[in-house]
Structure formats: structure tokens, C-alpha cells
């Protein structure tokens, strides 16, 4: 049905969105690239010089960069592992014949709708506070030493909070996928004497391959730029222990006002995100074809 008329009309209707997104992508990115070649600090206005790739050399050789790269990878990897494994478990459980399934589903999905600043502060204070937090009370009641979460294992504390936020997403998607699994197929497998264990590995898990890929892909996009949770709890510390790439660049830009350095960092972040995206898309490309 693509007559000449509809093609023209189609282009007219799509153009505003394409134009906006193009501008949104190209203009700031071009500015980032330009700034990244300048010595440019907001505290010393008027002293901007072209310095070539110096900002990049500085950013990439800064020990803070390697530390934050490591933190970013640990954070993303751990949260992915936790949410996919636990999410599969939760989804399998809710898929069982249980009473009040809809209510359980509501309880499980709820954390996803909590804004990041709220979940981070509630966890940090009400639950993980070393003296008055609920976890401290549980530990003391069991005769254990309460953990000072954000002092002893700061990155793990962040991982815990972020996993709690993303577990619902993984669970819900995997549950939706499970519910579309052909019941007869499972029945047939059982009649043939398959144990629950092998039903899971040979039928359920392959069926979940695609939704798990989708979960990993989408979570990665969001997890690479975790920011608010760090901003309101640790401020990147102690030291650099919870600084990820996003937070490092933020602090260079808006705390140290180093526009040039932060721009170089921003571009490195864009490149890293693209490498991850390419890697993921290639890995999952086959899986995603519709």
C-alpha cells in the first residue's frame, strides 16, 4: 500500500520525531567532543585553550577511571546475575498453582515503581543503618554482630539496593514468558517420565532464553548509568569504592567544574556503552529476530 502519496505523507509524519532525536543526539555529542579537546574549567572562565587529546590522556590514566570502570562492571554484572537468577526463581514460584496469585504479583512488582531516591534512602536508613536499622536489630537478636553496611561493604550495599529495584522487572518478564509456555509440552515430558529437574533444563530454560536475553539487554542499558542511588547514599565513597563511570563524570563536571575533563570522560562513557551495546546486540541478535 505504499503509493507515492502515502510515502510522502509517511515521511512528513515521521520527520519531526526523526529531526528532534537527530538534534538531541548530534548537537550535544558534537559539543562534548569539542569541549573534550579544550582546557576549560568553569572556575577559570576565559582561559579555554585547545589542548588536543590531553584530557583523554589525563582521564584514562587517572586511577579513578580504572576504579570506576571496575565498579561499573561489578555493579552491572552482579545486579544482572542476582536479578536473573532470583527472577527466574520468583517467576517459577508464582507460576505454580497458588492462591492469591494476583496479589503476590502485585507485591513482587511494587519495588519497580518506587523512585530511586526513595528506595536508596529507605534502604540506607530504615534497613541498613548500623545501629537503628532493621537489619542491625535482626543481627543482634540472632546474636550476631550488626554489619555497618555502607562502611564495610559499600559497593555491595548499592548492589543490594539496585537489585531490589530490578528484581521485579526480571520476575515479571520471565513470568509472562512462562505463562506462554505450552502446558501440554510440559505434560508430555512428564508422562514420558521426565523429572521436574530435567523438565526445567530441557524445556523451561530453553523457552526462557529469549526473555532472559531481553532482560539482560534492557537492564544493562539502565544499569550502566546508575546514578541517583549513589548520589543520595555514598556520594561515590568511601574513597572511590562506589564511584561508577556515571558518578565520576558527574563529579568532574558539577563538583570540580572541569568541563574539558568531564567531556572526555563522557565520550569514553559513550564509547563504552556502544561497545557493550554492540556486543549485546550481536550476542542476542539471533534471539531477537521477530
Amino acid at each position: 500500500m505504499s503509493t507515492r502519496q502515502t510515502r510522502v505523507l509517511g515521511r512528513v509524519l515521521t520527520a519531526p520525531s526523526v529531526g528532534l532525536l537527530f538534534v538531541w543526539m548530534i548537537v550535544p555529542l558534537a559539543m562534548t567532543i569539542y569541549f573534550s579537546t579544550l582546557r576549560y574549567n568553569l572556575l577559570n572562565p576565559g582561559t579555554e585553550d585547545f589542548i588536543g587529546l590531553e584530557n583523554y590522556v589525563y582521564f584514562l590514566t587517572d586511577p579513578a577511571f580504572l576504579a570506576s570502570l571496575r565498579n561499573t562492571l561489578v555493579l552491572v554484572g552482579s545486579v544482572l546475575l542476582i536479578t536473573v537468577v532470583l527472577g527466574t526463581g520468583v517467576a517459577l514460584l508464582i507460576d505454580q498453582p497458588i492462591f492469591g496469585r494476583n496479589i503476590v504479583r502485585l507485591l513482587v512488582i511494587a519495588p519497580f515503581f518506587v523512585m530511586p531516591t526513595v528506595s536508596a534512602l529507605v534502604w540506607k536508613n530504615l534497613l541498613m543503618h548500623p545501629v537503628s536499622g532493621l537489619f542491625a536489630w535482626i543481627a543482634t537478636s540472632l546474636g550476631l554482630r550488626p554489619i555497618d553496611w555502607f562502611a564495610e561493604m559499600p559497593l555491595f550495599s548499592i548492589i543490594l539496593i539496585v537489585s531490589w529495584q530490578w528484581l521485579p522487572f526480571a520476575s515479571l518478564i520471565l513470568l509472562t514468558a512462562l505463562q506462554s509456555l505450552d502446558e501440554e509440552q510440559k505434560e508430555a515430558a512428564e508422562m514420558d517420565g521426565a523429572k521436574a529437574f530435567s523438565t526445567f533444563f530441557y524445556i523451561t530454560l530453553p523457552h526462557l532464553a529469549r526473555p532472559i536475553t531481553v532482560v539482560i539487554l534492557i537492564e544493562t542499558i539502565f544499569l550502566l548509568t546508575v546514578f541517583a542511588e549513589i548520589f543520595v547514599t555514598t556520594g561515590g565513597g568511601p574513597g572511590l569504592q562506589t564511584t561508577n563511570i556515571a558518578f565520576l563524570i558527574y563529579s568532574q563536571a558539577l563538583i570540580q567544574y572541569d568541563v574539558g575533563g568531564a567531556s572526555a570522560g563522557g565520550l569514553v562513557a559513550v564509547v563504552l556503552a556502544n561497545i557493550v551495546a554492540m556486543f549485546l546486540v550481536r550476542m542476542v541478535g539471533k534471539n531477537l529476530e521477530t
Partner: protein
Amino acid sequence: MARRTTTTHAVVSTGAAWLVGLIIFFPILWMILASFKTELEAFATPPSFLFFEWTTENYGIVQERSDYMHHAMNSLTIAGGSVLIAMLFAIPAAYAMAFAPTERTRGTLLWMLSTKMMPPVGVLVPIYLVFRDLGLLDTRTGLIIVLCLGNLPIVIWMLFTYFKEIPKDILEAARMDGATILKELAFVLTPMAVPGIASTLLLNFILAWNEAFWTLNLSTSNAAPLTVFIASYSSPEGLFWAKLSAASTLAIAPILILGWFSQKQLVRGLTFGAVK
């Protein structure tokens, strides 16, 4: 389930599922409880679970001392405004791509999605400087613009997956009967597209309400939505747990309710139609 489902099996899995559900929900429940405690009780060890003196004073204080409503209105304006404007651009685009696809449509869609791959922190510096020069820092207009552009790809994708499922035969039949493009839009397409448009609105409103990168970086007080307002409780001298909990409960309640209604669309929307 026609399989050998015994009663024991059902009881055990029901118990386990409820336990898991309650554990996952617990932090929210604990926060709601704390919002009805006095500051002393909220901080007390051992904590009291239900048998404390219930009070609603925190809610009053949050509104009085920190002008909660001002920030709630900001959230509403920013999230609502950005989504509505995104819809104005996205509906025609998604319509065109779903009903008159060309060989370029697939590429365009994937390209739009790829703009989402760009980490916001990569363009933080230029956006911040441009906003500073245009006087858009700490304004609702500025945040509406950024959130609108940030969500536009998701809005277009979601609408596209919904529109694609509307049978084309109906449109062709209408066209045969002499309907013009405008009539076709108004009387045939719109009624069928409303559910998809509504879910897209809802989900993206939720995403914009909870957005906490741009809002934290581009607003401080005047235009600060609830995400930023809650973040102000992170200062060490501001350890008011009951008030933090009251403010947080108010901030998430409307979204939690909207979210519960939209959970089916959530799966579809956030997976760009890849899982239904």
C-alpha cells in the same frame, strides 16, 4: 493445571510464594509503617512493628515545613508535560511507520532505539552549559524538554508495536468506502488505537515521574520534582526517618497505584514488544 497437582503441592507453593512476595514488598511496608511513627519510635531499637502510637503528624509537618505540594505539582507538570508533548510527535510517526512502512522503517526504528543506548552522562556537560546559558536550569520547561526527548524513542516504539497489531484490512475497507485520510484517522483508527495510546501514556508517565538523573542534575529547588525533594533528606543532619518515610510514601503512592494497573503493559512496553 491438569497435571498431578496435589493439595500439599499447592499449599507449599502458596506459602512459599506469599513469603517471597512479602519479603520483596517489605521495605515499602516498613517505610509506610515508619511514616506513622514518631521520630523517636522510628529510630528505636528494638523496633515496634504494629504496637506503637499511630500518628499522622509527620504528613502535616512534611507539607508545612517543606512545601510538599509545590514539589508534587512539579512532578506532575514535568512528567505529564513531557509525556504529552512526546505523544504529539510520536503518534504521527508511529502511525506512519506502522501503516505505511518503507524499506527504511526498520532502520529508523532501530536507530531511534540506539539513541537510548547513549548514556545521559555523556551529554551532561553540554546540556548543563546550554541550559545555563539559556536560563533553563531549575525550570520546569527545561526538564520537560529533556525528559520528553529522553523518552521519545520508547514512546514511539511502544506506539508502533500497538499500531502494528491493528488489522490493516479495516483501514483498506474504509478507504474503499471513500473515507479520506482524516476521516479514517478520526473514526476508524483512533477508537482502535486508544488502548495502546493509554498504556503508552501511563507507562511513560511513570518513567518520567521516577526519572532521577536529569532532575537531580538540572534542578535544585524551584523546579525540583519529588525525586530531588526526597534526595534532600540524604544530608547527614537531616536524619528524620519518620518524615522521610511520610514524604516518600506520598511520593510513591500515586505511582504505585498507577503502576499496578499498568503491569501488563509494562512487560510489553519496556521490552519493545519483544515479550508479550
